[in-house]
């Protein structure tokens, strides 16, 4: 397939998004239909491109010398692109219903669809500059979505969001410059591009820069101590929190970290250095920290956000193991966690949409009234708790396996952290479930008499996610095989 399709799939959402406010649509639905059609078409195109991948890379634009915006699709990028392409249409479907009770949705959908293109851009970046470019763009383009409600709280949240994002990018920038200067090439090559002849005897420098760069990118994945923006950003409308702050934006951070680790710096250079130890320490701490904050949190969406913080660090943990197994596990968790968490968030959104309740102590007895929502929620919680038979268990299994294989004491600690966080997950998720289904003897259902499940626009995505969770949980072999191939291709 011609490499121009790469540019095409990036552009279609951007164009569609920009057109959507301009075109004179009579009714709300016609605009939404237009957007949905565009997005679905794009997703189909993405898969078409994935299935017969163009080998050539496409240079869109050249800044100076070797600095150029270049698109190319390789294994890891393809994986990420595919994931995004699956999730976006569903999320858009959901948000059509959800946004009914939020105002000026036109601009919302503009940026929401626009982000799709940018995310694909990150996935298909061929060199580090391109990735940085789309990375920055992502931070800026999602800002209006965070401050969508325009309340004081939202504005403060969006400020924090932006400071963290740009700050992270600023430190990632150092890494980029380092690669541009000392790399044989700026593009992503499995096993890293650093030119050791130039760097002989400066291992410490490499380590420092790697730490800075990794942390910089990991700000988007809300690694401790850069995690506080994520819960704050929960003020955004739920589709944003669900798709962007549980999947697209945050995974972009993980993806970027993965890129620089395996394709720019190269795992060999980092393995066993203090850099790896330090980062692993931070990550392991984040895994536990996020969960414990989630347990303390009483706001529904913020609790989920904290849980995201910890789960994203699973991915980083897999990455920083610096082995093929680790990479496999990281990819697996990237994929599976997206489904679990987006499902959980959509349930929260459905509750907010139907009842306007935001806090957990307000959820008593809703399980009996919104059975579908809360059953799906229960299943996603079980998945997050890594109950066997659901996809959460699979990714945890591979993470732990990789950690054990690495025979690195730090990694053993990491396993313990994984399990502790699983336990905490059980605590903070199941308390909600129990509340919802067993409000206690003396609870009068009259107070929530006319609460009921939302309509199909919201239900369909939820059900699909649940099915996916079960499928991946019970029959993970093919997808894992695929991931293993990708990882093998990425670690030389």
């Amino acid at each position: 397939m011609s490499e121009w399709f790469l540019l095409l799939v990036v552009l279609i959402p951007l164009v569609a998004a920009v057109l959507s406010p301009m075109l004179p649509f009579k009714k709300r639905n016609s605009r939404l239909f237009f957007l949905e059609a565009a997005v679905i078409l794009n997703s189909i195109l993405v898969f078409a491109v994935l299935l017969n991948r163009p080998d050539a890379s496409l240079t869109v634009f050249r800044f100076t010398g070797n600095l150029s915006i270049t698109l190319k699709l390789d294994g890891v990028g393809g994986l990420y692109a595919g994931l995004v392409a699956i999730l976006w249409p569903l999320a858009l479907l959901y948000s059509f219903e959800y946004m009914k009770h939020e105002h000026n949705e036109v601009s919302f959908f503009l940026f929401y669809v626009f982000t799709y293109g940018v995310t694909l851009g990150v996935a298909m970046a061929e060199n580090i500059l391109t990735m940085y470019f789309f990375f920055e763009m992502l931070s800026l383009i999602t800002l209006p979505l965070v401050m969508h409600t325009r309340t004081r709280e939202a504005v403060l949240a969006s400020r924090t969001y932006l400071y963290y994002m740009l700050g992270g990018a600023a430190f990632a920038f150092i890494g980029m410059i380092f690669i541009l200067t000392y790399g044989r090439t700026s593009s992503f090559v499995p096993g890293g591009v650093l030119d050791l002849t130039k760097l002989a005897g400066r291992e410490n420098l490499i380590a420092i820069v790697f730490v800075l760069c990794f942390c910089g990118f990991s700000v988007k994945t809300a690694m401790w101590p850069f995690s506080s923006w994520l819960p704050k950003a929960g003020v955004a409308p739920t589709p944003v929190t669900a798709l962007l702050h549980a999947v697209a934006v945050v995974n972009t951070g993980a993806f970027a970290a993965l890129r620089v680790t395996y394709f720019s710096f190269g795992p060999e250079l980092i393995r066993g250095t203090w850099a790896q130890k330090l980062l692993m320490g931070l990550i392991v701490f984040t895994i536990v920290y996020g969960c414990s904050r989630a347990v303390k949190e009483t706001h529904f969406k913020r609790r989920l956000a904290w849980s995201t913080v910890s789960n994203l660090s699973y991915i980083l943990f897999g990455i920083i193991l610096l082995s093929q197994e680790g990479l496999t596990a990281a990819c697996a968790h990237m994929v599976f966690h997206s489904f679990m968490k987006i499902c959980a968030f959509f349930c929260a959104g459905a509750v907010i949409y139907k009842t306007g309740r935001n806090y957990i102590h307000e959820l008593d007895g809703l399980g009996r009234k919104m059975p579908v929502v809360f059953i799906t929620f229960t299943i996603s919680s079980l998945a997050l708790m890594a109950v066997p038979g659901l996809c959460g268990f699979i990714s945890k299994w591979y993470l732990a396996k990789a950690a054990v294989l690495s025979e690195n004491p730090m990694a053993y600690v990491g396993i313990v952290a994984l399990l502790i966080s699983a336990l905490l997950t059980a605590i903070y998720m199941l308390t909600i479930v129990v509340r919802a289904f067993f409000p206690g003897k003396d609870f009068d259902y009259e107070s929530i008499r006319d609460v009921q499940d939302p309509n199909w626009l919201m239900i369909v995505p939820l059900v699909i996610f649940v099915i996916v969770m079960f499928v991946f949980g019970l029959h993970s072999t093919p997808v894992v095989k695929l991931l293993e191939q990708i990882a093998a291709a990425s670690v030389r």
Partner: protein
Amino acid sequence: MAFVQNLPFISIILSLFSGPLSSILSGKWAKRLNLAVITLIGAFSVLVLTFVLQTGEPFVYFMGHFPAPWGNEIRVGVLEAFMAVFFCVIMLLSMIGGSREREIEIEESKQNLYYIMVDLLLCSLLALIYTNDLFTAYVFVEINTISACGLIMIKQNGRTIEAATRYMIMSLLGSGMLLLGICFLYDLTGHLLMSNIKEQVQILAVTGQYHTPLFIALGLMAIGLAIKSALFPFHAWLPDAYGYSTVSSAAILSSLVSKGYIFLLVKIFYRVIGFNVVCDSKVINVLFVFGIIGMLMGSISAIKEKDIRRMIAFSSVAQIGYIYMGFGLGTEAAVVASVYHILSHAATKSLLFVAASGLTDASDGSGKFYDLTGAGYRNKIAGIAFTVGSLSMVGIPMFSGFISKLLFSQAAMGHDMKMLPTLIALAISTVLNAVYFMKTVITIYMPATGKVNMREGRVIPIKEQPVKAIALIFFIVLNILLGLSSEPVVNLIRIGLEMFD
């Protein structure tokens, strides 16, 4: 010799005489004259630039037919010509952008005085760019200072006069040191023409004679010019001067005047002392340290600001810091980066000032952030322009700021000792920039509804201020141009620097 070679001299003279001429004109005509002159000179400079690029070597223009070492010379290379073009463009746009404010803020009788000042300023800038004679440079530095002072104080209120006084005091200190430095050099070498001084200095450097005096002279000149261009510890005058003068003054001062001094410093480094000698001296380390401190302190005080104009003013302290940091790195690439940053900052900063004035118009003339809430909706074009400027300042790809950040850090990579400090300082200052610029952007795009006791601004449609809108659009285009197709510009700078010696 080709006719084009006369053009630099002609343009200097043109601007010089248009000043006194406009003193007998009415404000309106003075304005037209001034705009015409700037445009004309811009055109001339373009011709000169093309000429120099064709010949591929600089040319020297004797004034009053004395050959060196006695005569006074103009020397034109690629960089000089390019700077002249760029300065003309920026000045033109700033004049256009601020025209409405000038009519409001300056009383009718003084209108034409303003244009005298601008003409003289242009003249002195051109002279600073072109001249090959140190003492001439000094004289024009003073002229520059005086006219700049005029630009500040033309808007008659206590603030501006006080600011002008402070400005004068500081820059007089600076020029005093500069003059002393020049005298030292003259004492050491017996020449005033840059090229001749350089020969001598090279000899001295090789033989190692007069080591201390030479570096004292260099230090005096560097510090003097640093003071005049408001490097960090000497920036006390800057926020008032930029924050309270009329818009086009602020734009011109921040983007041209200080840059003129810096450009002179570059010339001194390359054409008078010789870059190799400069790099061996300790002076550049001093510049480096102060540059970095400036980068951070400037931003920090900008964060504390409540008024948008003063905030932008403080941010230019930080940006000046960038430039001196570049000199401090003391490598070819770093100087290229600094010169590029001179350009990008000139473009961005004047854009920001003009846009800010547009926003304040839309919020009943108040520059306080509290009143600016939602101004981005009330004055669309200004809002967009301000956003672009901020993004460029923060260093987002495809805006000019990104490229200079890129060049700086690439230059830093070449350096062992100063690499990590520079990179980290860059990163931190990026964050700080983000903090105050993005905060402003968010504020102006936050709807003003539900705010109590806020002065309600009125919506300003584009057709109400067409001129400013045009200026802003040009600024935006210029900015994005610098951001996207930086390669030719960078090459120009490289060639120019090579032509210096």
